[in-house]
């Protein structure tokens, strides 16, 4: 599966099954869930019956020609079909993904640690299985022994294998992925049928879709409006009769269907499914629709500094020698001390030293004895040619010098403090008992972050940087990157406390996390995005999983959430605004002859035929056709979503009111007129 594929809305492989599904969905039991479309279906049924009676020569008490009744009936059926099609299309896009996923759910046989075997489908939480290279992992679980490279392309789309190992933050494995090398022992954590893969299939298919609170609220509003229009139309008959005009049932049904918010009623569930789908396309799995909506509301974004705001690693940018030490002497010592240091920081020191004309291979490696970094010493280095070279945190080097009988010069302390205050990280370098100088490691802020934060501010979202650094460093980086606030020396507890604090002030908080110790915070946050590379605990705690494990994804998630709501609001507005034109099409048609002077067929209300539609019948049919056609025409907007622009709420409201409100008033005038031109002038209706 290619998760980033951008299939056209109407691509044949999706369209074909969707058309089938849209007819299957005509089942009234399906329609009952959507009161608006249910009314349309009832209307279609009633007009069909009237036509059958007419066609059979029976009396229906109206003067409508049979072709008129039939046309209305057909277009009402089509309205329902189009609505079903929109939903089926939205579902269809997910189905394609689901099929790929399902094909991976091969029934492997799991080997338990005691040597017995069990079909994957029968594994229970707590079972411990052994997986050899080349085998599929039978279920979700946590690696408890061993390390292995795993191919997770099936779920992430990323072809490069990832490392999974016991302990730490890379211990979660997903059923359906394949071990490439080595072997691991995994403790199963999920019941069969509820695995990550199962949930993913259900999600992309929309099978488990439950209406979100906001969707329910909108549904109530739409149902209410439908009820009002029902009363409007029902009461119109006696009103018209009093005025000497008999309105046929077919016409009243046509008026009702034109008035009730069919457009948004038809597209509402498609919008919801498509919103989920857009997240899936960004390789994010939302575990509930509620979480997607909530992400549109996020007020505060907690971002980890490392990897999100700054490049994952610090870089050496300067050598600052102590008095009496040459810069290149320091550089050489730093280089030697870092030769065996494979961390990105270590490498960056070597690279920087090259600028001083030093090359890596100026010594025989066998004569060197490398001293690795340990958590106790907090320094590393090399013993070479009788010299002991060390680099490490300032305090650690000072301690070491003093234990070697030397003493640190006062300039060292000053230099260390200065670098910290500038937001950098200092590493001291020493040879034997003498401090040579300091290496300036600097956090590198990712390109474009300042703009990103500006954008978020425009969206009304405050960003908070979370870092383990001290306050000085954190403040410096926060200032440089343009983030609004920061939490320094962050512990999981401090993070949780911050979230609770923000929430108590009424804000919605979003965060990303991967480690087990992030789990409480992820669970507490309103939108918790767990990195797929993280632990099983983190993945369980969050309400979204980012398969790419990209912490900046949060920003996109917020946009998708907003887009989802905007699309709903915009199409609701459009749908209701359309009614004005429909009134001006249908009512003058119904009442064209009402209170006409005897001998004339054109009464006072005929003046309201602003669109100058050909005949009463063509006016009503045009309105109904427009009402039906607008659904498929808007499907692309429903599925892609209305573009979100971070221009501030009021400007955005103004913009959308103009496009969807004013546009919704004007567009149908044009559309209905065009349809009328075709069916009246060309087809003679």
């Amino acid at each position, binding site marked *: 599966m290619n998760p980033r594929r951008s299939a056209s809305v109407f691509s044949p492989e999706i369209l074909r099954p969707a058309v089938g599904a849209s007819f299957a969905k005509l089942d009234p039991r399906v329609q009952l869930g959507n009161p608006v479309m249910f009314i349309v279906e009832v209307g279609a049924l009633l007009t069909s019956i009237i036509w059958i009676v007419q066609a059979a020569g029976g009396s229906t008490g109206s003067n409508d020609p049979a072709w008129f009744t039939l046309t209305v009936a057909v277009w009402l059926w089509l309205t329902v079909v189009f609505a079903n099609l929109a939903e089926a299309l939205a579902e269809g896009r997910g189905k394609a993904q689901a099929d790929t996923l399902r094909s991976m759910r091969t029934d492997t046989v799991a080997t338990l640690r005691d040597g017995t075997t069990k079909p994957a489908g029968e594994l229970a939480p707590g079972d411990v299985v052994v997986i050899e290279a080349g085998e599929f992992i039978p279920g979700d679980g946590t690696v408890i022994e061993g390390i292995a490279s795993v191919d997770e392309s099936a779920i992430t789309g990323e072809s490069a294998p990832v490392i999974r190992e016991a302990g730490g933050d890379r211990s979660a494995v997903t059923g359906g992925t394949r071990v490439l090398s080595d072997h691991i022992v995994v403790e199963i954590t999920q019941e069969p049928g509820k695995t990550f893969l199962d949930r993913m299939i259900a999600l992309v298919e929309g099978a488990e879709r439950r209406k979100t609170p906001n969707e329910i609220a*909108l549904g109530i*509003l739409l149902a209410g409006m439908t009820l009002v229009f029902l009363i*409007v139309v029902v009461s119109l008959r006696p009103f018209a009769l009093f005025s000497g005009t008999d309105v046929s049932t077919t016409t009243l049904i046509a008026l009702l269907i034109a008035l009730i918010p069919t457009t948004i009623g038809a597209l509402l569930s498609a919008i919801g499914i498509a919103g989920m789908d857009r997240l899936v396309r960004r390789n994010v799995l939302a575990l509930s629709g509620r979480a997607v909506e909530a992400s549109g509301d996020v007020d505060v974004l907690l971002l980890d500094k490392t990897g999100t705001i700054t490049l994952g690693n610090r870089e050496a940018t300067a050598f600052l020698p102590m008095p009496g030490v040459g810069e290149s002497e320091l550089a050489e010592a730093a280089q030697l001390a870092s030769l065996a240091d494979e961390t990105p920081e270590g490498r960056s020191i070597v690279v920087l030293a090259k600028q001083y004309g030093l090359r890596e291979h100026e010594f025989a490696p066998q004569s060197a004895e490398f001293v690795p970094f340990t958590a106790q010493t907090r320094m590393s280095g090399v013993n070479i040619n009788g010299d002991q070279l060390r680099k490490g945190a300032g305090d650690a080097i000072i301690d070491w010098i003093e234990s070697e009988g030397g003493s640190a010069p006062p300039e060292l302390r000053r230099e260390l403090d200065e670098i910290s205050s500038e937001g950098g990280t200092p590493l001291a370098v020493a040879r034997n008992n003498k401090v040579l100088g300091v290496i300036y490691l600097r956090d590198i802020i990712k390109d474009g972050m300042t703009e990103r934060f500006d954008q978020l501010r425009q969206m009304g979202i405050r960003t908070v940087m979370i870092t383990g650094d001290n306050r000085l460093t954190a403040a410096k980086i926060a200032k440089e990157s343009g983030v609004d606030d920061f939490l320094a020396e962050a512990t999981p507890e401090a993070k949780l406390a911050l979230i609770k604090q923000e929430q108590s*002030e009424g804000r919605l908080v979003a965060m990303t996390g991967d480690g087990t110790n992030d789990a409480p915070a992820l669970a507490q946050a309103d939108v918790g995005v767990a990195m797929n590379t993280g632990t099983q605990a983190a993945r369980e705690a969050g309400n979204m999983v980012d398969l790419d494990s990209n912490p900046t994804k949060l920003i996109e998630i917020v946009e998708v959430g907003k887009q989802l709501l905007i699309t709903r609001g915009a199409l609701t507005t459009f749908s209701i605004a359309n009614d004005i034109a429909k009134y001006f099409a249908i009512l003058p048609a119904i009442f064209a002859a009402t*209170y006409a*002077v005897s001998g004339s067929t054109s009464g*006072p209300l005929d003046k309201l035929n602003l669109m100058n539609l050909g005949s009463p019948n063509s006016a009503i049919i045009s309105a109904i056709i427009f009402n039906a056609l607008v659904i498929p025409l808007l499907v692309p907007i429903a599925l892609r979503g209305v573009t979100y622009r971070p221009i501030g709420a009021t400007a955005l409201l103004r913009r959308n009111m103009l496009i969807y*409100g004013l546009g919704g008033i004007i567009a149908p005038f044009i559309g209905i007129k065009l349809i009328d031109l075709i069916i009246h002038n060309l087809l003679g209706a």
Partner: protein
Amino acid sequence: MLQGWIQIAIFFAALVAIVPLLGGYMARVFSGQPVLLERVLGPVERLIYAAIRVKPDRGQDWKAYARSVVLFSIASFVGLYAIMRLQGSLPWNPEGFKAPPWDLSFNTTASFVTNTNWQYYGGETTMSYFTQMVGLAVQNFVSAAVGIAVVIAVIRGIVSRSGTSLGNFWQDLTRATLYVLLPIAFVAALVLVSQGVIQNFSSYSDVTGVVGSVQHFAFGPVASQEAIKELGTNGGGFFNVNSAMPFENSNGLTNFLEMLLVLSIPAALTFTYGRMVGNRRQGWALFAAMSVMFIAAVAVVYTAESNPTPAMTAAGVNAQTTDGTTGGNLLDKEQRFGIANSALFNAVTTVTSCGAVNSAMESFTGIGGAVPMANMGTSEVIFGGVGSGLYGMLLFVILAVFIGGLMVGRTPEYLGKKIEAREIKLATLGALYMPFAVLIATGLGIATEYGKKSLYSGGPQGFSETLYAYMSQGNNNGSAFAGYTGFIQPEAGNAGSFGITFADLLGGGTMIFVRFVPILIVLAIAGSLAGKKVAPTGLGTLRTDSPTFVVLLIGIVVLIGALTFFPALLLGPVVQGLTQELF
């Protein structure tokens, strides 16, 4: 025309001027801040609490508050109905009127308890001074006070950051009456008397005129009732012709004052609202939205009435405006008010749920008559009734916030409080109940033989009469196309223009339904908002005090009103407005 526009501009300027004064004062009264009048009336207030046995500081949750509102209204109903039915045995009855029949008494009681003041009777030919003064006028006070109390409770719910209390109904009722309604009504009544509005207990008397014709004069305590009739947006006239009667509304100044009284509290409450929610712009935004719709209504009706009706033209009358004549459609309008002040009064009384009239709505031009119906079609939220206008508008605000919130990509919130399915459910009901009641009642009125009995005219005019009757009663307005049942013309001594049981019951039921359903809805919303956390506003928050939001709010109010009543209006006033034909 220009002179008329100037008068309208002066009136609006006066309104804008009193809004912050009265609004700020009411905010003080209802947030327990000291007001000057307390020094005088404080003992009276405490006496009332003692007499009715309440502890004013005891907060009520929404259910308790609503229960008190309903029970008090039931008590009001029982009391007023009893007074009417016992009229024949009660004092201050110079003409010896008998009790109005049960069906009219029911309709009238429902009408006054619900702040509607729809009148199927002629005041001076049906009701004794006692009934008018001790019965009807008391309801003019307390039904208005109930409206104020409810909206204040709703505001408290919106503001409240913890707990469930919306305040104490009895305290709000008492303070609204004692510190707001009574003092203003007292002063206004005296001003009215000084200009010729009568205030006495004299018996009706015959006067022989200059050329020997005998006139039978009706008197009574009119000014005291007139003042609260306007101030409380009640509208029930002492006389059958309401504020057209010179004894109720004697000159340009009284007319100006009466219109100002009608709008003062509904308009000022927007400012009270802004003050109480801690953001005056919120109040001004609502005021702006209401004002735009109000001014549009005035402009349309004034322009329409400045032209003759098709019937006038057919009679050969040109009705041009020249020096020394008002021109226009002066039929059923008073010379001293002219076209401008009749049109303005028409708009004032129908954007609010007042219903007092200084000219006959039924004789307006087609379009001129469509305006009051359109105003009522917006559920009376353009200023609206005392209290009821603002709480009605807040229902639309919730809908606007919902749609607008979606359009900016946030689940909706209002003043920091999340609007969720429960609030939307209630607000939808709130936008629904009125068209529901009006259309069904009109349908019954127009389609049944019982209903048709009430019609005076046929054709579109007859339809308008019926539609107007149920729009008016269905919005607690009270103004009328008075031909409806009014063809049974009152004569001194008979019981007035009543006697159609069907219309009495249908209208009475409608009035009760549309009064208490929204009260329960808004109190329930207030109750559910009361406990909610307040989210701080940010750039992404939909601002509800911006011009853009005002436009959205107007759009939603107008659209919902238009979409529900457009077809009906077409068949009544609009069809007449579009033709020169006579029917």
